[in-house]
């Protein structure tokens, strides 16, 4: 049983890493706030949660696995909330669909 679970966990972790990688590419390549947010959210909902679930068989015992599962649940609740807040703020500040200026000079 355990080797099978570990195998599944490994697959899950690899999937999570792929999601994270995709999120990085998304943040670097997408043009405006909403699309970038869409990509960035994947890093957590897809990437982190899959990695956590994949780590469960390696946690050594039911208690550790349960902890990881709880963390995943919290991510599931908090991540949409946060991205929603960001998207709403952008909407209100009328930043929607405006391409991000990469060479914005900040304050030196």
């Amino acid at each position, binding site marked *: 049983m355990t080797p099978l679970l570990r195998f599944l966990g490994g697959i899950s972790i690899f999937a999570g890493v792929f999601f994270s990688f995709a999120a990085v590419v998304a943040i670097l390549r997408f043009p405006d706030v909403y699309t970038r947010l869409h990509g960035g959210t994947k890093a957590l909902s897809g990437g982190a949660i899959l990695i956590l679930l994949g780590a469960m068989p390696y946690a050594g015992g039911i208690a550790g696995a349960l902890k990881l599962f709880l963390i995943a649940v919290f991510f599931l609740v908090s991540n949409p909330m946060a991205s929603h807040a960001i998207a709403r703020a952008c909407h209100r500040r009328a930043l929607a669909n405006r391409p991000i200026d990469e060479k914005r000079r900040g304050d*030196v």
Partner: protein
Amino acid sequence: MSEPLLAFLYFFILLTAVVAVLLDDLLSSFISLSVTGVLMATVFALFRAPDVALTQAIINSGLVTSLFLVAYSQTQRTPSPAGECRECPFWLRWPGAALVSSLFAAVLFRGLYVLSGDRIPGSTSAHYLSQTLEETGALNVVAAILLDYRAFDTLGETTVIFTAVFGISLLLSGGKYVHSGHGLSFIVKRGMALLTPFILLYAASILFLGHLTPGGGFQGGSVFATVAILICVVYGTNFEAARISPKSKETFEAGGAMLFVFIGLLGIAWGGGFLANLSGPFPAGTPGSLFSGGNMLLLNLAVGMKVGAGLSSIFYTMIKILELEDDSWPS
């Protein structure tokens, strides 16, 4: 612990630090610094210092970043002319700074190099590791050092927190009090309402099991402060001030300090010294249970009250003159 992993983390720590230093955009550079903090917490965890990792993750990469966001939004920044400082003497341009700091790095590394090699903990540390269970009844050695062997230091540290709160309130007093608007959207509010009890439970578990597991007053108090900050951001300053009034925060903070000193005096009353632990009125209990370790549980509570109320009132003092952009928009 694997060395490649450590090298990888160190590389990213330095990389994020360099990015934080060199980026012109302040917001991005502070986010980068926050990432440095998280990586540092990971390194601490790898170095088998769970207490420190917890504190670093909560305070240095969480609370400090939120404080920065407040300070950033409170300051007006007139863009100064780009490039070098015209009036500055030559040694204040970047080559001079680079020369001095690289020289400093070389000297520092030369000095630290002597320390590399097999390390043998000093006799004090060995004593702590071997005698903690007997002498204090606690399982977490770091908590035992903080709250029993060196409890006086901790008292001094809480005084530092008090001084910081005092100084910040003094500096930022007289600012205009502008109520924030209605906070964030309904979805966030409901989600926050769903999460808050769990975060509070987590904070309480960190705080009250501080003498058994990694954690303690500092970490638990910081998580409590984080909850206050989250409420402040999500529901608006107005709501937060109504629910947890600044007055009651002060009361909590003073109460924490009083509790600490009172426990210390109890030690004297029972014939030990100030802050004496097991010779005081609280029994050692069975190791591993909640009520063990003498007065450590109460001291953790005192420190937690102090830190939580202190940090949240720092945040509140800084944000109370902030006019949130949300206010001017119909919801």
